[in-house]
């Protein structure tokens, strides 16, 4: 292990850490990245990989939309294996009550210059003929996209590496802060700035950072080209994804470029083991089959789980950790880390270099929760 001094050490080589390494190096800073596994592991390897504008809150919208536009700018440079596909999202409304939500969403996005199209029942079935008949309609958000996150992380890391960034992979970090990262083997890397981009492990690395692991299950099918054309999400998702306490499942599927279909989603707190929970899996697949009955005839080739890094208020931590001048956070992105990785890196490095960020950063500052810990 090198004892060289860097400007920045990023802990975590997932998509957020990779985006940070890319951005720091773009601004001429000397960067080292450490990860106990490899580039693009953790939630980056296990998540779905959507690039979506989300409207749970104004702050969430600002970050996801800004980041989506950064991805759109980056798109011509992305290699084939990143599989960036602007398939669009359709928010599926099962009944008239959910159609009211479709109209609310259309207005919200419309006021913020995000193009959408309201789909009636017939148009929805024309766009996605394998949905069950009788659904009320939906909202097509055409600029939403999907990609393959591990390859996106590799692309960002390789770009950083070409600018001189170095990696230290496969070594667990013992602790990080006060201007140095100490590996479990005793070696150290020092830097003026330490970035905790450790995802679901961020709270373990920096005590006081309130990150909970939120477990998810995914299933991928064999190749069924043409079965599905857009990412589909049920509007009932809003009810299930936001309940903090109970286990929940929701219909969310993505077409992949191979013709495979990625089927989600589930959310569980307090389940810290990696094993597939057959009860949750059955509920998730049953929900998916209610919307796409043809899924029941398909072969699933792999099932796996992963852990989202969830914060108490559903927004990530991006910025200085108030109790340690050298330490910055870039974590807590829950299910939106792939989307928001690029914007996270931008506004973090903006803060550090004294550049004016393009969106207000206050909602993401870790100090909003650290106040409670400041006296400890």
């Amino acid at each position, binding site marked *: 292990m090198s004892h060289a001094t860097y400007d920045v050490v990023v802990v975590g080589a997932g998509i957020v850490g990779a985006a940070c390494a890319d951005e720091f190096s773009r601004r001429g800073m000397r960067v080292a990245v450490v990860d106990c596994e490899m580039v693009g592991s953790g939630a980056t390897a296990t998540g779905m990989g959507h690039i979506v504008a989300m409207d749970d809150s104004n702050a969430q919208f600002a970050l996801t939309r800004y980041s989506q536009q950064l991805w759109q700018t980056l798109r011509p440079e992305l290699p084939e294996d990143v599989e960036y596909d602007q398939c669009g999202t359709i928010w599926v409304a099962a009944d008239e009550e959910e159609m009211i939500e479709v109209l609310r969403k259309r207005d919200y996005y419309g006021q913020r210059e995000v193009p959408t199209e309201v789909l009636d029942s017939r148009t929805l079935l024309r766009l996605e003929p394998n949905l069950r008949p009788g659904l009320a309609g939906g909202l097509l958000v055409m600029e939403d996209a999907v990609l393959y996150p591990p390859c996106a992380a590799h692309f960002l890391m390789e770009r950083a590496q070409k600018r001189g960034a170095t990696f230290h992979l496969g070594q667990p970090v013992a602790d990080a802060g006060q201007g140095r990262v100490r590996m479990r083997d005793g070696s150290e890397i020092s830097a003026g700035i330490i970035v905790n981009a450790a995802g679901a492990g961020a709270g373990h690395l920096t005590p006081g950072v309130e990150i909970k692991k939120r477990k998810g299950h995914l299933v991928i099918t*064999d*190749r069924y080209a043409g079965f599905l054309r857009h990412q589909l999400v049920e509007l009932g998702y809003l009810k299930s994804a936001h309940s903090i306490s109970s286990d929940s499942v929701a219909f969310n599927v993505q077409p992949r470029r*191979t013709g495979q279909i990625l089927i989600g989603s589930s959310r569980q707190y307090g389940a810290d083991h990696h094993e597939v929970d057959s009860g949750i899996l059955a509920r998730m697949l049953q929900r998916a089959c209610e919307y796409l009955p043809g899924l029941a*005839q398909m*072969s699933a080739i792999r099932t796996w789980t992963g852990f989202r890094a969830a914060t108490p208020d559903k927004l990530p931590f991006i910025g200085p950790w108030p109790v340690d001048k050298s330490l910055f956070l870039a974590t807590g992105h829950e299910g939106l880390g792939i989307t928001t990785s690029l914007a996270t890196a931008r506004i973090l490095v903006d803060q550090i270099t004294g550049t004016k960020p393009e969106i207000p950063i206050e909602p993401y500052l870790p100090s909003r929760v650290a106040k409670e810990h400041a006296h400890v």
Partner: protein
Amino acid sequence: MSSPLTVTVNGAPIVVPSGATVAVAMVIAGKACRVSVGGEPRGPLCGMGICFECRVAINGQPHRPGCQILCEQGMDVRTDE
């Protein structure tokens, strides 16, 4: 001994003994069942429904394990070609 059956493989009639699996029909037809992602022809390997190398579309349903399904008169079998 019951009489032979006729299935079609990519539209061409293939006569098989009663009780033959679709994998047998593919061997008689002399065709690969599918093409791998890397572009290689693939066919029956384990013969017991584990390796999934012998997947074909049967009566319009894709990715069916040919070694586990018995031929039926008039069955439509399609490969990736």
